[in-house]
């Protein structure tokens, strides 16, 4: 074996790339994981994880300099001084917006597994069937039963805390003990149940924070600083979970600063033989070779790599023969919800900062209901008390005001919707060769937006939020609805969808590129529809399943 030859190449080191590396190395494959950005070592490089709030010069806020430097990131909460280094530079890696698209990226080892929201939900069977039923896009080539054992496998290793709620809309998983609702959330949950019976549910969030020690990781310490990297390894990330497991096999080589520019396609064998890498530090080009290649560069960058590959055979790139590569861009549309105040718990507070909230699973267009749109949405939310920096009525300055700042504020309860976006062929990304990034590589152009179905859904998302909170006894409920741009859900999906037919999909039911069977795409790009659940757990399950299949096929000599 030459120095640049491995059994497997994994492109990307985020949630799905980390899983691919773990599975492939544990099954004995010599694997190289290529990451375009810098290395971030577990614990050692979490430079802000143990700082107190007052140690940040702007107490966590954003400066005008940051706003100038990050024209995209500034559009939402990710831009802040506590973890600025974890977000890709908008200036080094620009993109074109035919329509506004908020693309928040993490270019470093671990990718966005270091900053993710950690909410982890299985899909239900109907989520896989709805495309077929509605005649939307293409049918998923798999069903819940295909993924069920892999969900369990992924949950068991990642460590998902949650309650077994017994809901058909949201299958239970292999959970660690759930986190606890606070007193207001429990009260709301009880009233919710009384009002909606079995029709709607209000449950504790299922989150990839471990609540008992697990695989040398310490259980969650309720710091709520998960976007900084956890010194306890309490939330699932590449660094805390998959990378150490892969390293322990002795089969993994990790190469940071490695931008994969294309997959090397051999037209004689009709397979990929390796990848071309541009070293992001030296600008030198290298080639690496392997029998199987897992593409986990994050949804749009995975499509970007395919678009740049095998262009001598297919002008649109590897996997473009169906005409679907780069199409069917999806995200969850959000920015709609409601909040209000809760009375009667003034003597109660909570101790610890729970990095989790409550969840209301989908209930619309279920059980025969037909709204004026299809699919549905879920809500995330939570109850809490206003903090110390609040406005205090009837008191504005002076000693009494100062003292009042030490009293906790009003209890509030709020929810925000996560709506399913349909896969529209015309929602697409393309290569814009007229514009180059810092490394002289062509950039992506985004042309995607929500359409009528999502806009109608948002009306329900807003009205239902108010109705449910009021039904649960929340007072002074106010709704909000705005900023409907795709991307800000940071749940990018589509662009290399799975399907049953090579004419209408990029990947088959095992996440193999139809046009190159030894290339597997198992990140969000593979998604055929979006459902409304947070998607990462599904990527983990898809990746573990595909890796298992890839190794079996390798052994049989089929790839």
């Amino acid at each position: 074996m030459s120095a640049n030859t491995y059994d497997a190449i994994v492109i990307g080191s985020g949630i799905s790339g980390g899983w691919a590396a773990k599975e492939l190395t544990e099954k004995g494959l010599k694997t190289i994981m290529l990451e375009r950005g810098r290395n971030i070592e577990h614990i050692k490089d979490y430079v802000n994880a143990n700082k107190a709030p007052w140690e940040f010069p702007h107490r966590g806020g954003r400066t005008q300099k940051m706003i100038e430097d990050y024209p995209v990131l500034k559009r939402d909460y990710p831009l802040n001084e506590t973890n600025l280094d974890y977000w890709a530079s908008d200036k080094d890696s620009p993109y074109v917006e035919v329509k506004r698209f908020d693309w928040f990226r993490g270019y470093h080892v671990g990718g966005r597994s270091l900053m993710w929201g950690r909410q982890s939900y299985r899909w239900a069977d109907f989520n896989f069937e709805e495309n077929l039923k509605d005649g939307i896009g293409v049918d998923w080539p798999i069903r819940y039963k295909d993924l069920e054992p892999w969900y369990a496998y992924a949950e068991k290793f990642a460590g998902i805390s949650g309650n077994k709620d017994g809901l058909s809309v949201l299958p239970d998983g292999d959970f660690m003990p759930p986190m606890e609702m606070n007193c207001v959330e429990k009260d709301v949950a009880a009233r919710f149940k009384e009002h909606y019976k079995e029709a709607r549910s209000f449950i504790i969030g299922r989150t990839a924070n471990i609540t008992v020690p697990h695989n040398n990781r310490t259980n969650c310490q309720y710091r709520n600083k998960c976007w900084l990297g956890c010194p306890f390894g309490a939330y699932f990330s590449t660094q805390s979970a998959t990378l150490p497991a892969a390293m322990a096999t002795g089969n993994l080589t990790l190469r940071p600063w490695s931008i994969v520019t294309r997959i090397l396609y051999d037209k004689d064998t009709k397979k990929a033989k390796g990848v071309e890498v541009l070293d992001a530090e030296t600008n030198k080009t290298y080639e690496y070779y392997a029998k199987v290649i897992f593409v986990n560069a994050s949804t749009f960058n995975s499509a970007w790599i395919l678009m740049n590959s095998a262009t001598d055979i297919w002008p649109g790139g590897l996997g473009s023969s169906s005409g679907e590569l780069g199409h069917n861009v999806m995200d969850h549309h959000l920015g709609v919800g409601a909040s209000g105040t809760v009375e009667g718990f003034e003597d109660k507070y909570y101790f610890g900062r729970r990095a989790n909230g409550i969840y209301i699973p989908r209930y619309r267009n279920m059980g025969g209901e037909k709204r004026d749109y299809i699919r549905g949405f879920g809500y995330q939310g939570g109850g809490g008390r206003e903090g110390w920096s609040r406005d205090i009525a009837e008191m504005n300055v002076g000693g009494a005001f100062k003292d009042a700042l030490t009293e906790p504020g009003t209890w509030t309860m709020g929810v925000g919707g996560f709506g399913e976006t349909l896969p529209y062929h015309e929602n697409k990304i393309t290569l814009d060769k007229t514009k180059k990034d810092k490394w002289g590589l062509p950039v992506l152009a985004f042309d995607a937006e929500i359409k009528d179905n999502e806009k109608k859904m948002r009306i329900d998302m807003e009205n239902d939020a108010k109705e449910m909170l009021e039904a649960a006894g929340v007072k002074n409920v106010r709704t909000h609805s705005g900023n409907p741009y795709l991307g800000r859900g940071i749940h990018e999906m589509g662009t290399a969808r799975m399907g049953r037919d090579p004419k209408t999909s990029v990947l088959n039911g095992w996440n193999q590129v139809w046009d190159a069977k030894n290339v597997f795409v198992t990140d969000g790009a593979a998604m055929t529809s979006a459902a409304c659940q947070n998607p990462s757990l599904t990527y983990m399950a898809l990746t573990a399943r595909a890796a298992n299949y890839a190794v079996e096929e390798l052994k049989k000599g089929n790839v």
Partner: protein
Amino acid sequence: MNRRTVIKNLALVIGGAALLPSCMKNNGGLSIHFKHLNISADQENLIGDICETIIPKTNTPGAKDLNLHLFVLKMLDDCYKKKDQQAFMVGLNQFNDMVKKKYNNSFSDLSVKEREDVLTALDKSSKSAADPSKSIKPVRDSQKSLDVAKKKPDVPPLNFFYGAIKQQTIFGYTNSKYFMTKQIVYELVPGRYNAHFPVKNLKTV
């Protein structure tokens, strides 16, 4: 002890500000160096007096003890848009004129009661003018950081000036080391979640 020494000593004790190294420079009477703001020593003192009126020294430290006025200025210098900084300066001058007209004196020469009256009147007029201090969100409970750049553009400069000072003074106070270690104890590692924690135990954590 002169003011500098007081601040220096308090800061050593309380560790209230990360601003100190530049505080010690001889800077035309100013305590810190600004990148964008053009603030005189008198203006810095005025802001200090306003901060101290909002959060006065009682049996616990006040705004000046905690260098909150310097925090306000740092936030203003780093985090506010140029046009907001300009509005702030316009408002500052209007504030001086307003006080002069009403009391025939400068703010610094007013009694505590008079100072409180001035600010209370401003708070009242701000309530109807979309006071930026109303947009304060609790930051300790949420990942979302305070969006300090989000300001209502149509706030009159005088209200903007005072609103910005008040917002950042409260934000600085409740996120100061003093407040988070001596008033409401901030646990870096809570270790557990108690969903039924009585309020009465809050200060004795």
